[in-house]
């Protein structure tokens, strides 16, 4: 008995060692390596790389379009989850199944689909082109690509909460004469807010880093339609490692901030949600 317990503890330690080794090799070490490399030339130099006009533009541009995507996705994602949970209508099951398509389709293919659909040669593209609006190779195309690739996040994080939510409070408010909007904003929204924020944070971090669909859709003109990840790729390709590193470190830092934010929401909803 004693020896089998000893073996058990030893086995546990071995497993822990393997897990730590894997995380260390694939996550911790690469992060440390890129950060060390970025800070090698000193902080002033790193700052200079980040604030190069092209780099700074790409970062600002990335954050702005990600924010636009976020607003659209929070509204449409919550609406979609609501409709899928609360209403019955034809094709509901199919639509529910197809929501995840953006996760399954390779991002390059996403980009090409949007070019086919809205590019200058397409019906939609021609129509908007006549009115002087360029979708593909310009900002609307990038936002469209981001909305597509991040669409499932908010839906899939709000949906389960809506399914489990008790409806007696809503019904009580309604019989007492509260309007639909009042019921939604005072009763439903507070309950699903943590899940909306979780979905939003996930889609925001995805949008900040998105590359495959954007590189095809954006035209990637520096200082006009070049996002941060495309800028970094260009710098790596032309062997300007240092200037790529500055932007990469900023993106990496944003990812960490999103992770911390996600942990915070989780703790917050565990505390007050029950």
């Amino acid at each position, binding site marked *: 008995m004693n020896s089998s317990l000893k073996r058990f503890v030893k*086995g546990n330690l071995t497993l822990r060692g*393997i897990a730590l080794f894997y995380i260390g090799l694939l996550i911790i*070490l690469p992060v440390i390596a890129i950060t060390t490399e970025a800070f090698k030339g000193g902080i002033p130099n790193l700052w200079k790389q980040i604030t190069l006009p092209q780099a700074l533009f790409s970062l600002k541009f990335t954050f702005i379009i990600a924010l636009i995507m976020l607003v659209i996705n929070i509204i449409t994602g919550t609406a979609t989850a609501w409709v899928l949970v609360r209403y019955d209508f034809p094709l509901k099951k199919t639509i529910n199944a197809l929501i995840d398509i953006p996760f399954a389709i390779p*991002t*390059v293919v996403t980009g090409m689909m949007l070019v*086919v659909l809205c590019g200058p040669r397409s019906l939609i593209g021609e129509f908007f082109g006549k009115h002087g609006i360029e979708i593909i190779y310009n900002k609307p195309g990038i936002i469209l690509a981001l909305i597509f690739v991040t669409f499932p996040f908010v839906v899939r994080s709000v949906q389960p909460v809506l399914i489990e939510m008790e409806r007696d409070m809503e019904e009580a408010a309604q019989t007492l004469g509260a309007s639909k909007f009042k019921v939604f904003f005072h009763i439903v929204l507070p309950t699903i807010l943590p899940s909306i924020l979780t979905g939003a944070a996930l889609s925001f971090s995805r949008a900040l880093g998105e590359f495959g669909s954007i590189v095809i859709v954006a035209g990637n003109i520096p200082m006009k339609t070049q996002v941060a990840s495309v800028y970094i790729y260009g710098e790596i390709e032309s062997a300007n490692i240092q200037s790529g590193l500055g932007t*990469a470190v900023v993106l990496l830092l944003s*990812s960490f901030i999103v992770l911390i934010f996600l942990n915070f929401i989780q703790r917050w909803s565990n505390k007050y949600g029950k």
Partner: protein
Amino acid sequence: MENKTNCVEVVRKQKQAGKWVLISFVLLWFFVLIIFPLIGIVRETFKNAISVITSSLSSTASTHAFWLTILITFVAVVINTIFGTIMAIVFAKQNFKGKLFLESLIDLPFAVSPIVAGFMFVILFGPGGWIGSWFYSMNIKIIYALPGMIIATLFVTLPFVAKEIIPVLREFGIEQDEAALILGASQWQIFWKVTLPSIRWGLAYGVTLTIARSIGEFGAVLVVSGSIINKTQTATLRIHDQFTDLNYAGAFSAALILALISFIILNLIQYAQKRKKRI
């Protein structure tokens, strides 16, 4: 009394109207965003003659690219299933200092840009990197070669299996493990007879997600591979290459195949998810 029923009636009618406005809005959004693009890609592919499609799909470069994608996906799935399960067991059943921090680190691959991911590995495993220089001195190339592409794919798919199993294991508890242990089972036996049966559908779900992501990965693999035709070009890299070369027949037919594969995987995912919920 009558007044009250009237009130309920009005509320119900309002609700009905609002309901259909919302439903049609969501349906419209859904069709514009997901269905139309899918139809578009099918149409664009079949604008070309079938012979053009088949010849471009059966070219050496294309078949090589597809085989490479299959190989990388296979290796990534095997390795990440093993390590993902180990990580899940450790985080769900053990307690140690820094566990919370490490567990949230597992999510990093989801939050980080694939380009930044690729960049990290170029720096760590490149000829001048801490690990890379050591391998280069033994004449083993990692970046711009297969090992680097596998490592990049491992990174972007690292969380899937672990994240799917951890909650299942937590819910399952450790009582049965303890019982088995007291009855004299070895750890290996506990894993096969107690742990595995409880996590198998969560595992299946994680594996399908890993497959989908490995097949579709583009940015990270692009940075570490250099996208050399017939050498380090995967299916997605090949599609991108053909698309930028204006070879639309090749690009769209290959894209359609990947889209079809994704669709099949999506169905598998949904199946695994349903089974997972049932157990």
